[in-house]
């Protein structure tokens, strides 16, 4: 092999090394954006749940108007189509920034059932939160169950 004919081979090897090196640290920006967006969406749930939970637990005074706004927000948040957030390649088997289990992509029927449970629980909350503390407290339990049902099957613990 002459020095000239070696060049393409060396370039090819260097190219492969570079690809592997980048692949180890590089996450597709579209994946990162999807993960950030779904985590932000979950944060919006938590914020509105905090308003209702504070009242349910007696830490803040019951306020029918504020409770109704928070409950309507939760119903709106759960009516969003989540599918663009969960792009293929964004499970915790693919990238480290997420606790989303591959089961989400392997079991779409189960995910849709869990989502329907959430939508039912937020609709119930939207119907009852403005009508008194007792109704709010009762709806809170079903809502907690819906959060837990999805996080039981589809979210890994922290590392």
């Amino acid at each position, binding site marked *: 092999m002459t020095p000239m004919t070696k060049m393409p081979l060396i370039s090819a090897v260097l190219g492969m090394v570079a690809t592997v090196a980048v692949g180890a640290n590089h996450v597709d920006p579209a994946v990162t954006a999807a993960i950030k967006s779904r985590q932000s969406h*979950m944060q919006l*749930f*938590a*914020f509105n*749940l*905090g308003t209702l*939970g504070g009242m349910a*637990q007696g830490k803040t005074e019951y306020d029918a108007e504020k409770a109704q706004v928070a409950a309507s927000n939760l119903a709106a948040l759960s009516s969003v189509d989540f599918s663009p957030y969960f792009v293929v390649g964004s499970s*915790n088997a693919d990238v480290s920034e997420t*606790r989303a289990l591959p089961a989400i992509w392997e079991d779409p029927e189960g995910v849709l059932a869990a989502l329907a449970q959430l939508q039912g629980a937020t609709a119930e909350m939207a119907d009852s939160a403005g009508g008194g503390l007792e109704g709010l407290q009762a709806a*809170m*339990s079903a809502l*907690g*169950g819906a*959060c*837990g*049902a999805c*996080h*039981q099957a589809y*979210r*890994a*613990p*922290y*590392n």
Partner: protein
Amino acid sequence: MPFAAWSALLAALTLLVMIALRPAPLPEDLFDQLTGDRSRGRLVFAASGCSSCHSAPEAKPGSAPVLSGGRGFKSPFGTFYAPNVSPGPSGLGFWTDVEIADAILNGVGRGSTHLYPAFPYTAYTHMSQQDAVDLIAYLRTLPPSPAANKSHDIGFPFNIRLGVGAWKLLYLREGWVLDNATSPELERGRYLVEALGHCGECHTPRNFLGALDTSRWLGGAPNPAGEGTIPNITSGGLAWSEDEITTFLKTGFTPTFDSAGGEMVKVIAGLSQLPQSDLEAIAAYLKAVPPID
């Protein structure tokens, strides 16, 4: 010494070891003075998390638990399968109360075999006899399941059950981890965490023989059911107030309104049925154990 004498000595020693490691069954009249209360037993069942492992994997929440077993638990020693403990003939239907109690309290199965400690009898051994008979009375009210038991998938030498006898001599202990419970509430919390709740099974790391490392009690551990870490719930790792812990155990919501996930969801489904005072006792206990960094 001639060869025959050596052989005899070896045989005698083997026999002694086998006798020492053989399960010692509970006396048959153990519960003659006790009567099981099914409704109290339902709470013992909820606190003990029985359905977390023994319910059918596809079980529907809310309905009466069908304890058909079948769920697999991977471990460094192989995969253990939860048995059918429903009251039907494929489950515990033919077992006496004392036989069931022997399994729960001592890890001894029917026919005097050692059970593997994937079944957390090292915790349940601290269960009171009254709670045990109440629990058994409740178990007998549940729907039977015809599911056949699956054999554990365990390699040599862990498939020799007599070895479990040696393991028990080392790790099946009478004492508590928190030896100074200074109030009735702390005693109750200790009983719920160390005995019924068997919280340490996931929240405490294990040694190379699979026994809990009590020097890092509740200090967090690799997730036995898969990836990630089960959190440190001593005050060295968990900054929540007692009130926040109580609320979490009741509702599944963290102080920032995230929710419980993974196996903890089923734990909370059970614990949330307990009286508020029990959840407060658990929170008080968690604040009393030595903080682990």
